[in-house]
């Protein structure tokens, strides 16, 4: 079995870091516009490391919402991470200790999860630490830059950077969907469900992600169970 190194992790973290720079940059600007200080913006990014949850949390802070509202909002938007963590736990090599899990969980973002899942073999402790390092730095420093100097950059550049994360998702999904027709079908089902829910219902986006992903994966797990998943 191939062991992925720290260096490989770092390398795989570069595109995530680039994508995060742009998204967190926008978040930094958003914080300042909402009336938070630079330090507050930075603290939110450094302790949460998640895009959607942070975007939803800021208005609650500025608007003086209740703590229950904050907790429920974060739970709904971030519940997908629970699914991802279960999946990621199966991907961990035996050298990953409990303490490692506590640290990795902190930066188990959509993108980190996606890249780790996309690896052919189990991932080692060193690889995971390499993988989460740059994205974390990108996420926090991007927020800081956005908060401090957000209005210097032209809007068109910021808008273009907004697709970086999605481009990465595409780069993860498409090669597997090309190779495995069942994954392709799963992607089509997920796409249709997602559009239906987004355009026809008012279900909060956190729930939409969970419902669509669970339904699509369940259908495929029943119709086309994997014969050999283990390595």
């Amino acid at each position, binding site marked *: 079995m191939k062991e992925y190194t720290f260096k490989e992790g770092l390398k795989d973290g570069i*595109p995530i870091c680039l994508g995060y720079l742009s998204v967190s940059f926008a978040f930094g600007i958003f914080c300042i516009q909402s009336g*938070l200080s630079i330090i507050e913006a930075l603290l*939110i990014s450094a302790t*949460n490391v998640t895009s959607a949850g942070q975007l939803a*949390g800021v208005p609650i*802070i500025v608007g*003086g919402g209740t*703590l229950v509202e*904050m*907790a429920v909002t*974060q739970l709904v938007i*971030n519940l*997908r991470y*629970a*699914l*991802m*963590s*279960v999946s*990621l*736990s*199966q991907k961990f090599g035996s050298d990953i200790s409990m303490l490692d899990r*506590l640290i990795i*969980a*902190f930066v*188990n973002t*959509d993108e980190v*999860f996606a890249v780790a*899942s996309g690896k052919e073999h189990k991932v080692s402790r060193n690889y995971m630490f390499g993988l989460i390092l740059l994205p974390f730095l990108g996420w926090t420093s991007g927020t800081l830059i956005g908060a401090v100097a957000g209005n210097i950059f032209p809007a*068109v550049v910021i*808008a*273009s950077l*907004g*697709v970086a994360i*999605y*481009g990465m*998702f*595409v*780069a*993860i*999904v*498409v*090669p*597997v969907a*090309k190779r495995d027709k069942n994954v392709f079908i*799963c*992607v089509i089902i*997920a*796409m249709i469900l997602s*559009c239906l829910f987004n*355009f026809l219902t008012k279900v909060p986006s956190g729930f*939409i*992600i969970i419902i*669509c992903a669970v339904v*699509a*994966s*369940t259908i495929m*797990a029943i119709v086309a*169970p*994997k014969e050999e*998943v283990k390595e």
Partner: protein
Amino acid sequence: MTPNFFIYLLVMAGVTYLVRVIPLILVKKEITNKFLLSFLYYMPYAVLTVMTIPGIFFATTYTASAVVGLIVAIILALRGKGLTTVAIVSCLGVLVTELLITYVI
């Protein structure tokens, strides 16, 4: 009384972290159930798809530029390009399209 910033921060970061860490601590054994394994195999691709579609179409100033970015990404990914290449060239595709729409059309 409105809670102060740090209380909000604590609740926000606390909930987010717990959602992430609890399954990672609890599920240590290797899952052997065939249905669960299959479910977990498909799940990442389903999640990423749901997050990309239709979200990407609202991530840019114009929907048209997002469509260009998506198509560029899919073509490059089909040709086996890596994450960084796909992400950057996709952004460039959006940038060029946005500039064209803004200044030419």
